[in-house]
């Protein structure tokens, strides 16, 4: 009696040689844990150790795992063996979605677990568990075959503790599909909540950088008899009613027209000199006289309250 395997119940005397009583969970888990078929799927250095685990010295078939399947449809176990890059995580999530339940994931090595030595790289995902659920993490860089086998045994033990009543994939509301990330300017998840979060933070950052920006004189140049002062706005839209442009040498003032609004990222050009003309709404003509001294002059921009916003020196340099 005492040498019965765990989970086995005691058997009545009359059916002893014909019937074995056990639990569904025990039989399920026994079958599952000892016929885990891994997917033929290698990413980087760890994949070599994964291959070596299958060879004679370490012999993965001792665990019923030598049947490596190239197709995710036939595989039970995905061994993420190596550095996961942003470009590669898209196919990985797709492969994971194609695997049939129950499916398990082993994160093999430092890179797959948390980015490893390449974590700070711009194309590296800091851990596959940011995208797909992981059952067992195997540390090492790369883990030796022995370490990987220890990971397998840990996974077997985990499977043996499962129960068909509680595993998620038999539940009615179970979806099991992970939204496939998209490669934009950088990788982003297609989960709507995450997309909203990304947009909100991006807009906040845009507004913050706008608020830090300001209206300033960007350039003072002349082409023949057309003198141009370029005023650029790197901040939010600015109503320039009451603003003035002041020339240092000639002591002349230019008043901006009432209701003139300078949009973000836009520039206004103020022309002076005999050939001054306004080609676009953002070209303003001051006067047909020459204003700026080419040997050296300073332009000052003054806002409606009389405060100096920006100065610009011209000539000599």
């Amino acid at each position, binding site marked *: 009696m005492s040498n019965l395997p765990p989970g086995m119940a005691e058997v009545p005397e009359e059916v002893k040689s014909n019937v074995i009583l056990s639990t569904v969970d025990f039989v399920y888990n026994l079958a599952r844990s000892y016929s885990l078929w891994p997917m033929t799927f290698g990413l980087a250095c760890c994949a070599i150790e994964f291959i070596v685990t299958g060879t004679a010295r370490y012999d993965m078939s001792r665990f019923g795992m030598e049947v490596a399947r190239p197709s995710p449809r036939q595989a039970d176990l995905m061994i993420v063996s190596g550095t996961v890059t942003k470009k590669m995580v898209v196919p990985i999530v797709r492969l994971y979605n194609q695997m049939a339940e129950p499916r398990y994931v082993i994160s093999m090595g430092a890179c797959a677990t948390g980015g490893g030595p390449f*974590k700070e790289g711009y194309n590296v995902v800091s851990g596959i568990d940011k995208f797909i659920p992981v059952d067992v993490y195997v540390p090492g860089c790369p883990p030796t075959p022995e370490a990987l086998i220890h990971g397998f045994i840990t996974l077997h033990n985990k499977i043996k503790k499962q129960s068909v009543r509680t595993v998620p994939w038999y539940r009615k509301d179970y979806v099991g599909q992970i939204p496939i990330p998209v490669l*934009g300017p950088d990788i982003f998840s297609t989960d709507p909540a995450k997309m909203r979060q990304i947009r909100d933070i991006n807009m906040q950052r*845009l507004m913050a950088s706008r608020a830090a920006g300001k209206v300033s004189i960007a350039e003072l140049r002349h082409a023949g008899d057309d003198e141009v002062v370029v005023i650029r706005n790197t901040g939010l839209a600015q109503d320039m009613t009451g603003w003035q442009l002041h020339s240092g040498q000639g002591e002349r003032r230019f008043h901006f027209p009432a209701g003139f609004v300078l949009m973000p990222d836009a520039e206004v050009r103020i022309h002076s000199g005999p050939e001054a003309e306004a080609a676009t709404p953002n070209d303003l003509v001051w006067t047909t006289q020459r204003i700026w001294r080419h040997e050296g002059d300073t332009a000052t921009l003054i806002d409606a309250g009389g405060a100096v916003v920006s100065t610009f020196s011209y000539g000599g340099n």
Partner: protein
Amino acid sequence: MSDAQSATSLPYQDAVPGAVLAVEKGLLDDSLIVAPDKLVPLATYLRDHEGYDMLSNLTAVDYLKFKGRTKADRFEVVYHLYSTRRGGRPKVLKVRLPEDNPVAPSLISVYPGANLQEREAWDLYGIRFTGHPNLRRILLWEGFNGHPMRKDWLEPYYEADVKPFKSRHPDGYHAWAEDRNPWGDNVRYPDGFDPETWQSPVQTVPLPRHGGNGVPGAIKTERLVVNMGPQHPSTHGVFRMVVELDGETVTALEPEMGYLHRNHEKIGERNTYLMNMPYTDRLDYLSSMSNNLAYAIAVEKLLGDEYKPPERAEYLRVIMAELTRIVNHLFSVGTFLNDLGAFFTPLLYTVRERELILDLFEAASGSRMMCNYMRFGGVARDVPDGWLDQCRQLVYERLPAKIDELDRYLTGNEIVQQRCVGVGYLSPEDAIALSCTGPQLRGSGVPYDIRKAEPYSIYDRFDFSVVAFDGCDVYSRYLVRIEEMRESIKILKQALKQIPEGPIQGGKGGYTVRPPVGDVYSRIEAPKGELGFYLVSDGTGNPYRYRVRPPSFINLTALAPMCIGNKVADSVIILGAIDIVLGEVDR
């Protein structure tokens, strides 16, 4: 650096007037500063009249933060030309480009081997090459924000320009990079980016599409485009081939890579020189000792004679490098047979011998695969007692017998011959023009081996021959690997006989080295071909530019020419015979 010289004293003024603007003194080689518009004529002249027939290395450098450089010459494209007949040091050409519109002429018309390397320079530095037929991003994806190797492009986890990062441990506690990033993740978006309105740019792979076979009266067939990879059991990792098929015949092929682009070079520029040593292990992860050796030699060339390794260290390096060659070729032959359809059984035989060599590596360095064994001016530690005897036993008795066994089982095998002979033809001229190196070049009958052409370390002391077979096909490449293992055994026997006792570390040692200002290109014959390191030093403890010239990446340039006209099943073994490792292809 570039002194004002009178126009008459500059080289090549008669051949290509005005091409060379200045001559820059380098640590090892003088480099010619070339006018961008005269680059193609000068390269043609050097190829046709001076025998510089191979463009070995093409890369770009961003001199934004370098002392003495301005915006007018911010970018520099560097070309290293070699002669496969003469060997010796390279001819170095440099083209300087301004910040606002960096455009250089493409060298594809002179050296077709520039193809993938120019695409890489465009991807990572944003330098346009006029005349390139297919200037797309290669390692990253279309739509990626910016060109990441530029010095002013900062990654999401950016902390400081160079390590050691002071910000890593404020107040003695570890600060997580994620916590400094608003998304808590390794991502960065342009301000105002809205993922809901994002549309990926249309990616066009330039395959010539044809309808029908063009023969009047024949059956109209349609060409089919097949994507192989990135998850494909035959592609040796995460590599993708877009193949256009007419029936079963390949009519066009386009390699797609970057699925393992883990930013080796960007990280390498942040690291100190010594910190890069373990990273080189992970380049070509099957032959980490060779990578160590290549990098150690490159830095020693920067540092000068002071860091010359002592004798015992030189011998240990050679022993490790040649053992690595055997490891690599064993694995390569095994997986090649896998590709041929002999699933796993030949690999079981080859991996068994590989394990024995890995045991030696583990005893010497502490790790099976990622050895991190070489240091500047020596090796990390001496081998333990009894190591050399174990190595001798392996080299003298076991390995030669096992290589013969492999040879006996495989080389004469009818299926192997049927599948391999005449498949994947690459003529010697094309192999050189496409910058192929290693077994791929020698399988085309070009006896070019850097151990002989430009001996490094102590290879000039050993008696061995360069293996070359002139079948120009997959079978020859396989034969080269088998024979090279025998030559390595030959070198190992000599090295194990001659190895002296003595110190294993020369130079000053220590963790920080500060090489003088300058640049150096150094290369070795790695198992897969020419593994080069191009290092630019600005006098600090961190490399200003850290470029790896990966052999299997550049050998892939020849993939499409070799596959076209063959059957789709043969494209798998042609790729297998190139022997790529993605850690090196994508870096």
